[in-house]
């Protein structure tokens, strides 16, 4: 098949950039480990407490060691369950010191939800039957809104919480 000379150059340039681009993504994914959240652990959505991480007392922020935290969350329409504070009321805001490594582990009791800490790379789908997890370093102070970014019903836009990263 005949291709015009300029077109061959154009396609060579395009395909070349494509190859370079894919190599960079592949390098990031497989060498640097920058994979999207893809956890394959399953869970019974109607009995999430059966899993250690999602027992009532383990929800919310837990310090594992210095500078390392785990945040366990049960999502449901239209709430993120972050555990209870000392007074027994629902936690709506987490406070985490700057520079911490935080592992977010989230599951859903009912429908599909989103889990996005706006302004960070924490962004994943939460589906009943699976645990979604993502580990990140929170290096900038500020107040971050945790929003449900997948439609989960009529109260979807009322499903949120807050994370404060302090100095």
């Amino acid at each position, binding site marked *: 098949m005949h291709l015009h000379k300029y077109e061959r150059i154009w396609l060579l340039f*395009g395909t070349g950039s494509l190859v370079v681009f894919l190599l960079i993504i592949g390098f990031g994914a497989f060498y640097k480990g920058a994979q999207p959240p893809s956890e394959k652990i399953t869970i019974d959505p109607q009995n999430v407490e059966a899993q250690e991480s999602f027992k009532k007392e383990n929800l919310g922020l837990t310090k594992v060691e210095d500078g390392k935290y785990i945040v366990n969350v049960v999502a449901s329409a239209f709430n993120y369950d972050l555990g209870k504070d000392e007074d027994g009321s629902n936690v709506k805001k987490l406070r985490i010191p700057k520079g911490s490594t935080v592992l977010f582990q989230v599951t859903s009791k009912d429908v599909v939800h989103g889990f996005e800490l706006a302004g960070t790379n924490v962004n994943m789908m939460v589906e009943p039957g699976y645990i979604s997890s993502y580990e990140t370093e929170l290096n900038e102070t500020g107040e971050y809104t945790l929003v449900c970014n997948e439609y989960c019903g009529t109260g979807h836009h009322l499903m949120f919480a807050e994370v404060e990263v302090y100095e």
Partner: protein
Amino acid sequence: MSDQEEQRTWSLSKQEKRLSMSFMYVTFISLLIGGLMGLLQTLVRSGTFSLPWGIGYYQILTVHGVILGLVLTTYFIIGFQYTLMNKTVGMSHKQRQTAWLGFWVMVVGTIMASITILLGKASVLYTFYAPLKAHPAFYIGLALVIIGSWIACFVNFRQLQVWKKQHKGEKSPLLAFMVVINMLLWFIATLGVAAAVLVQFIPWSLGYAETINILISRTLFWYFGHPLVYFWLLPAYMAWYAIIPKIIGGKIFSDSLARLSFVLFLMFSIPVGFHHQLTEPGIDPVWKFVQVTLTFMVIVPSLMTAFSMFATFETTGRKKGFGGLFGWFKHLPWKDVRFLAPMIGMLAFIPGGTGGIINASNQLNQVVHNTIWVTGHFHLTVATTVILTFFGLSYWLIPALTGRKLTSKINKLGIIQTVIWTVGMTIMSGSMHIEGLLGAPRRSSYSTYGGTEQASDWIGYQIAQAVGGTILFVGILLMVYIFIQLVFFAPKGEEDFPIAEEEPDAEPTPRFLENWKLWIGLTIGLILIAYAIPFMDIIQNSPPGSPPFDWPIGNS
């Protein structure tokens, strides 16, 4: 007489025109209803307006998505493609009767789904993610729309087959070839969503199956959901490759190149659904990467198309004697709406396609996934590139079907319409893109998120979206007015059906490009490579299924 010219001898009969027009009526009614819903959404989200009579935000969001994304596009495409087939290969009486059957099956399905949504029983958005449970009539309606569209597929396949039998050894007309590729793509892709709807959703919503496997339903949906955008895009490409050159007074740049790019679109648009599922659990990251790679392969035919387009423009301009580096560009027929509207659509595809590359990138996706950036992206691709091309086609297609003329007054109105659309979409889609980068979610009603600073930063962009949305709605009203003019009031006459020809000394098109067995085989092969193993993995590693939930959407 070359066989190219011989292909042009079909003229559309009255009955064929009526068939295509029936699809156009549904298209423009959908435009009005769906556009109104879009306007209302932007107003609600600006925080200054609430819906009356207990209508829900997510209810109108569902109407907007289903009516514009699934109904308008499918009806326009099928109607347009019938005219292309009838013009290039002809249609028999029996084929036309079957086509009507397909139309009515689609209409019954559309009405069923619409009524269910309007009654608030199916506020599940156009993605209808399980385990949100709509009324069964919604799923049955969707199934009927798909089945009706399959009838159109088989009519188109049969049309080309009959022509080939009568023209042994000749190459098929370019537009007929393109239509058949697009319908092949549609048929292979809709098998996924049809399987989900028929095997999973309908029995589960009727109560015959207690639970549903969510990840399988999502995987089947996205197996269809991405090729769906190519099903929208390819008719625009048909116009760019084979119709626009005629409008600007030129020839087809290369018949073989056009066919090759369509074949590549067929192969590389289906086995890529995982790039919509990058941030979800349960799918192996290696397979996500494989599909990301396959996704990027469509960049090759996209670049080929871009080259062809500009090559046609330049060659035509230079032949007319407009020299200089950009003289040919200045002298394109900018005042002809049949050119202007699709051309702006084409230009919008440059940022639109770039945004698509960002969305589909393994890690970048996480920054924009499910933010309103994505909404901005497809308002640039589908609602600008595709829709402006469809509008551009309508200016001659509707008069050609109704036996009227495109007057210079309507042409002027069309140019105004195109400008309004461009301005409205630039404002709306632009602010959606920026707001998404700031983290604002898509498909959400107005919320202050407890009064956080981030959320207050988002509001300004939402007001800009309402401004853009209002301008766009004015554009829709004008387009509907133009449609009514072209159907009922424009002066009677014959309007051109522009189909471009090859250069007389064009290189012959290689035979292998019409080897259907080869292309279908390769497509199935790629689908198996991309899906077979991860799909088995998803089944073997499945969690307990999910019961239906109807209360979160107010369907209990």
